[in-house]
Each structure stands twice: as C-alpha cells, then as structure tokens.
C-alpha cells in the first residue's frame, strides 16, 4: 500500500452515526474480482437516485467537497459487513484519513491495510470539526508520525494508534512479508501441536 506520513486535505463532514458498510458500498458492487475502481460506487444510494441521477441534496455531491480527502463522521463508522470493498471505495474516491469518535473493529482494521488512517477523537472534537467543515471551506492536516490532527486556526488533537499499525501505514508495508519473517515460529507451533 501507499505510505502515508503527513497529509493535508479538504474535510468532508458526514454528520451521521452508525454509517454501515452497506451504505459505504452497496452489495451490487461487490461482484468484481479486482481491488480497483470502487470509488465511483462510494455511498451509491445516497449519491444517486433510483434513476442513477446525482442527488443534489446529498452533501458529498456539493461542489465544495469535490476534492475532499478527509472524512469526518459520527459514532460507529463502518459497522456491519466485513467487506474490504468499503475502504477500497473510500480510498479510490480519494479519502486518506477518516475521523470519528468510534469505529467498527473490522472496518478499522481494513482501513489500516489500505493506507487509510482511521483517527479516533472525542465526540466533542469530532462535532467541532463537523461544524467547522459545514460552515466553511475547511482543511485539516494529519501528522501520523506524531499522531496529531490540526488546522491553521488553532485546533490540535492527539490520537492513539497501535504502534504496529502506525509503522505499517508509515512505511506502506505489506504485513504478510513481516509475518513470514516469523515462519520458523509458525512451523514450530504446528510441530508442537501435532506432537501433543
């Protein structure tokens, strides 16, 4: 995956809790056998009506968010299905950072395997960012090395991220190659198991 260290981008606020992966990418788009090209289907049923026309009342369709790369949303973002198509769609659409008060576990993990940084902030901090981004053109900067999110108007928040996941994201590593450095241990585990 593509490494990510520092990222500045336009913020798109999605002021909803419990956004599930069926909303992020509906099931009819899960039939492809490649990892690419899912961005066009992101939030499909919210972005398009039943005739396939853009819904003007859905915020992501607004001009000011067209080049957004940081998504800010409510509690429990990415709940539901384990489909990795959800982070593939977000990433392909252009999102590199997500900020929310909480995430579904599988989705959170899936993000970190695809170069998307899932940032967890307090509900009040998230609400503040949503309000800022709804009110004006708003940019944030992620600094993954120091695990911080800030703007140029004085907002600054630190966040937690597991050291292992952070290292993988910073370097864009594929964790299978890391695991395979422990191959002897896996073998040993299997041998002991079969003996007992």
């Amino acid at each position, binding site marked *: 995956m593509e490494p990510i260290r520092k990222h500045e981008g336009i913020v798109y606020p999605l002021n909803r809790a419990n956004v599930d992966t069926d909303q992020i990418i509906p099931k009819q788009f*899960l039939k492809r056998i490649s990892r690419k090209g899912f961005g066009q289907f992101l939030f499909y049923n919210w972005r398009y009506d039943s005739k396939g026309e853009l819904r003007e009342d859905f915020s992501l369709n607004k001009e000011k968010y067209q080049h957004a790369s940081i998504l800010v949303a409510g509690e429990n973002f990415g709940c539901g299905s384990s489909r990795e198509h959800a982070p593939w769609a977000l990433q392909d659409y252009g999102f590199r950072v997500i900020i929310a008060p909480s995430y*579904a576990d599988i989705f959170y993990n899936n993000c970190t395997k695809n170069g998307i940084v899932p940032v967890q902030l307090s509900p009040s901090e998230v609400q503040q960012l949503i309000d800022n981004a709804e009110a004006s053109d708003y940019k944030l900067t992620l600094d993954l090395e120091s695990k911080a999110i800030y703007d140029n108007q004085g907002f600054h928040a630190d966040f937690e991220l597991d050291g292992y996941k952070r290292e993988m994201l910073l370097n864009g590593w594929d964790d299978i190659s890391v695991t395979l450095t422990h191959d002897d241990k896996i073998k040993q585990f299997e041998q002991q198991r079969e003996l007992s």
Partner: protein
Amino acid sequence: MGKPKTIVEKIWEKHIVHEEEGKPDLLYIDLHLVHEVTSPQAFEGLRINNRTVRRPDRTFATMDHNVPTIHRNVIKDEVSKTQMDTLKQNCTEFNIPLADINHPDQGIVHVIGPELGLTQPGKTIVCGDSHTSTHGAFGALAFGIGTSEVEHVLATQSIWQAKPKTLNVKVNGKLGTGVTAKDLILAIIGKFGVRFGTGYVLEYTGEAIRNLPMEGRMTICNMSIEAGARAGLISPDDTTVEFLRGKRHVPQGDAFDEAAKEWKSLATDEGAIYDEMVEINADEIEPQVTWGTNPGMCIPVSANVPVPESAKTDNEIEEIERALEYMGLEGGEPISSVKIEHVFIGSCTNSRLADLKKASSIIKGQKVHPNVTAIVVPGSHSVKKAAEAEGIDIIFKEAGFEWREAGCSMCLAMNDDVVPEGERCASTSNRNFEGRQGAGARTHLVSPEMAAAAAIEGHFVDVRHMKVPTA
C-alpha cells in the same frame, strides 16, 4: 489451581505463535472458511507475490452469497458467475476443498461449518464475513476479517490480533413460550445499543443461554457483530457435545469422548474476571420487531414505533427521523398495524432445520396473505434435504410459500432475490440497513415464528396470540 480464566483467555493462550511487547499477538488459525465474494482479491494477491496457501487442509470454501435459489445453474448475472467461477479456479489451483453450487455440502458458510463438524470448541476460526461470530456458539473464537486478512491467513495460517477485552452478557431467567433466541438477541441489542460490544468479545452466560439448543445459540452469537462485537461465544457444555457427536469432521468413537472432555474443560472457570458485564432478564422479553434502519432500532411487537421527540440529543432525533422516513413509518403507530408485502425466512441467522420447523408449525394448514410474497431459503443443501424428508417443504408450499435452494439470498440480495423499492419485508435475517435487501427496500427483522405469522396475517402480529393448529 491457577487463576480462574475465561474461555477467551484459554483459547487465546493456546494459539499464540509469537508475542512481543507493544505489538499485537500473532495468533494461529485452526479453520479458515472462504466464500466467493471476499476471496478473489486475496488469491490474486497470492499469485502476484508468488505465494501459496500454507494449509489448504485447514481451509474450506463454499459458494453462498451469489448463488441463485430458483434454478441452480441459471445464473443470469455474468459478473456473479465470474465470481463463482473464479472461486472454483482458485480452489483448484491452491488445492482447497470446495463445496460448489452442485455439491451436496453446499450452503451458507456459517450453516455448513457446524453441520460438517468443522466448527469445534476451542478452535480459532476466521472467514471474510462478519457473521463468522456464529461459530462462537460452540465455544470457538470466531471472527470476521477483511480481504487483506484473508490473504494473510491463506499465506501464513495466522493473524495479528490484539488480545480482546471480554464482556459477559448474562441472561437470567427463562424465555417465555413463543419467545425465541432471535427475540433475545434483538432485545439485547435494543437495550444496550449497536456499539456496546465494540472492542470486546461477548460471552453469553446465564440460565436462558444454557437452556438454548445449538441452533438458538448460533442465532445469538451470529448477531454479536450487530452489537459491535467481532466475536461472541458460549462456553461448551453437554448440548454442544451432543450436537457435534457423529458429525463428519469430529473425532469418532473413544476419540470423540476424549475430545469432548477437553472441550468442556475450556468453559469459563468459576470466578473468572471479565472486563465488563451487562445483565438482562429473559422473562421480560416479548417477541421483537425492528422498526428502523439498524438492529438496535427494535421494539416489542406490542409497542408503538418511537416518536423522534423521545430521543435525548439533536443527532439522535435526526437519526430517528431519517429512519422513519426511509422506513415509511409514522412515529407513534403500533408496529402490529404495519402491513408487509414480503416474507423472507432464511440467512445465517435463522435458516437451520429447527428454524424452518418452528416457522412451519405456525402456518400449517393456513394460507399466505394475498398481498404477501413469501420465500423460504434453507441454509444449506443438507437442511433442505432434511426438511423435505420430514415434509416441511410441503407445509410451506401448501401455504403458498416458495421453497428455494440454499444460499444467502434475500439477506443481502446479491443474487436475484431482491425486495423492490418502497416495499416492506418481514425478514429472519440480521441486518435492516438501508438498501440491504434492495435499493429502497424496507426490512423488519423478526424471528422465524414471527415472520411466518406475519406472512399469514399480512402485518406484524404477536405470534403468541396466533391460533396454532394442533398437529
């Protein structure tokens, strides 16, 4: 005697391959279940990097999400067909056992694992599917993973995992007559919310859980993910052991009794400490119906749909308003007055023989309401055959239900089984998300008994008040 341990701690300790300060543990995976939707990119990744499947003998694949349920080999959608063909090619290339569409073992991955005895207490089980939590009913540590992790497990038979916290969901008392495991899990999620389990493994304990047969336990563990928990489990006991006895992949004869002894020793020790605990009384629970767009939005069948003003915060008010609008409901209307056009009995939550039997007992000798289209989709080919051997299919067909082939079907509507826009479905599945059963479709989650009753009446009804014909 050492320190008392939870079943999660016991399974965890037995599976650590590598541990290191400040890192997740590398955990060995005993069983990897694979299906057509979340695996193609993982196999492709193996090929690109010239890697192989480490333990095809610990891997098992089937086709369930896309499969047609009317005519087995008529797959209109070319893209679906490609996905199924791709799985077949991948399984051939990497030597993975596959129950394909025409195989007698085919079925929903979470139905066939237990049926074949692949699912066993104490195993670590993963699958690229969030409802992998189902297998926790057997006292296995089972959780859903993404496609990158599928690739990782294929290549290494292990996974990086931080040790989870544990949450004891204690269910006191007894479930009343006509109140099912489905009502219990919906009531739990309704009471504690769709994210109370996030970051935890749920262990269900208490009298009502002990009294449940394995089918009910699977329904409960299946929906742990709807509470935010990746995994939910139940300590093994005699019920678990008897369910597994004689299944194809469990040890046979004396070896089975040995295994059973070991399985039961995995049960959480008296005095073991959980990180959190919640309690609920089974006797207070009524049959449930979801009214909204997540499984936590559920009410007893005797209740009214909530009014937005009943919520505490602006965001919650907005959430209820949005759900009511999507569902085409008015706050305050009795849920029992809501008319339905579709009934779906199936899915990894409620498609086992016991589910179909119970639903059939409600409809025997009656007719599906003229405004309702009702389908039954057995969880596996074996469930279908067993039901047919008992004449259950005849009961459904005579009542006007369609009797289909096994698969995930209308739970997520990836095949042709779709609820049309604006129409309403009483569904025994696990998710009532917007668009889940079709764009604009309105899903109400219920038990198989409640779905059957709604099929007859054309609206939701308390199944406890239905006149059930005497057999």
